[in-house]
């Protein structure tokens, strides 16, 4: 296999990006309006709020929770979320004693329809390399200290299967409605590097 040389180091990546956009646009190979549509979609519509709605519904509707764990893709689609990088989503539950955490060591595969594009820490080589070798240490560095009796399962997303963590519902939220729970659910808890805290 050939390895390509890097770009000219004196040219900034922003300038090279602009150059590529010009080259393809002026030949009619891409449409700037389509480009802008893709950017807007991922800046505004496709993000972790979608996943938070899924989680809040699962916390308040036992039938939905069961459907979500049985067939994540279908249950997520019930709420209107599907699309690129969400062809087959498997949902796993975190509890007081079992903790799932998701990574993609080979690139940065991530369940876009429910979480949007991955945050910088998920794409960090330190995360990609170390979470599969010393997850307890890595989670601690990220601010999550798990008790010794918690069993950790690291999910490396090596195929087109995408994993979503159903976090544990925090104590003291029994009186909250589904709508009130949604803002509590963080992106990081749905990847498994944080827990959802009580309000």
């Amino acid at each position, binding site marked *: *296999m050939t390895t390509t040389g890097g770009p000219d180091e004196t040219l900034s990546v922003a300038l090279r990006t602009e150059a590529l956009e010009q080259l393809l646009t002026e030949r009619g190979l891409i449409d700037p309006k389509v480009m802008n549509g893709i950017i807007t979609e991922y800046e505004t519509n496709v993000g972790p709020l979608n996943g938070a709605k899924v989680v809040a519904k699962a916390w308040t509707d036992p039938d939905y929770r069961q459907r979500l764990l049985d067939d994540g893709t279908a249950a997520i689609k019930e709420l209107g979320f599907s699309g690129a990088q969400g062809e087959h989503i498997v949902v796993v539950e975190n509890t007081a004693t079992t903790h799932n955490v998701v990574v993609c060591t080979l690139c940065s595969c991530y369940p876009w329809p429910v979480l949007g594009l991955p945050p910088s820490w998920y794409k960090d080589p330190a995360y990609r390399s170390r979470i599969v070798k010393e997850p307890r240490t890595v989670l601690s560095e990220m601010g999550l200290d798990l008790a010794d009796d918690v069993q950790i399962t690291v999910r490396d997303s090596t195929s087109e299967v995408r994993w979503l963590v159903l976090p544990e519902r925090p104590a003291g939220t029994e009186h909250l409605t589904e709508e009130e729970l949604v803002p509590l659910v963080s992106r990081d808890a749905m990847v498994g590097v944080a827990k959802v805290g009580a309000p």
Partner: protein
Amino acid sequence: MDGIADMGGTPGWGPMHPPRRDEPVFEEPWQGRAFALAILSSRVAFGGVNLDAFRHALERLDRAAYLDDGYFGRWINGAELMLTESAILAPSAIDARARNLRGEDVEEPPIPEPARPDYMRTAEGSLRTVDSAPAFTVGKPVRAKDMSPPGHTRLPGYVRGHTGVVERIQPAAVLPDTNAHFQGENPQHVYTVRFDSREVWGSDSEPFALTAELYESYLETIS
């Protein structure tokens, strides 16, 4: 293939930092442009979506092209590689245009004769049906083959040669190893295989479980 992209277990990357709560989707405007450009470039280069070929372009970047400008920088460099291999762009076209954009006056290379791969996917997405029954059943011990293919693969280096147990059978899917090279979809059964950390990393490692989705041809029975 072995290379910079196969990061699982590799040393030297330093500590993690607590996640930022307020991180924008695109920290700088060029990153959004790069994201959309890379998606559209793979359609221009291949005549259709081929995520496996895109990932193979990324994993062939050298260390600097892969790392120096982060995730979206690697997407721009991967897009350039796809477009030059399909002869949509000449190899020096982006740099020449970038120089002109910053006020230099350099000659840009002529547009080459396109040489797109012969590629037509059989359906949207990657899930396919396979007529044969899965070779492995849930609960069965399996070993990830100890192999190091020169082309694209989704078998991470760190599980090769290690033994786990089939946790779930996932829907059959296009085999990245051939599809990335436009050599056919060859759909296979896909298994979530569960490994014990101490089997993979040694008896001194943190105790935990590790799963990966592995295509049927990556696995062998234990004799």
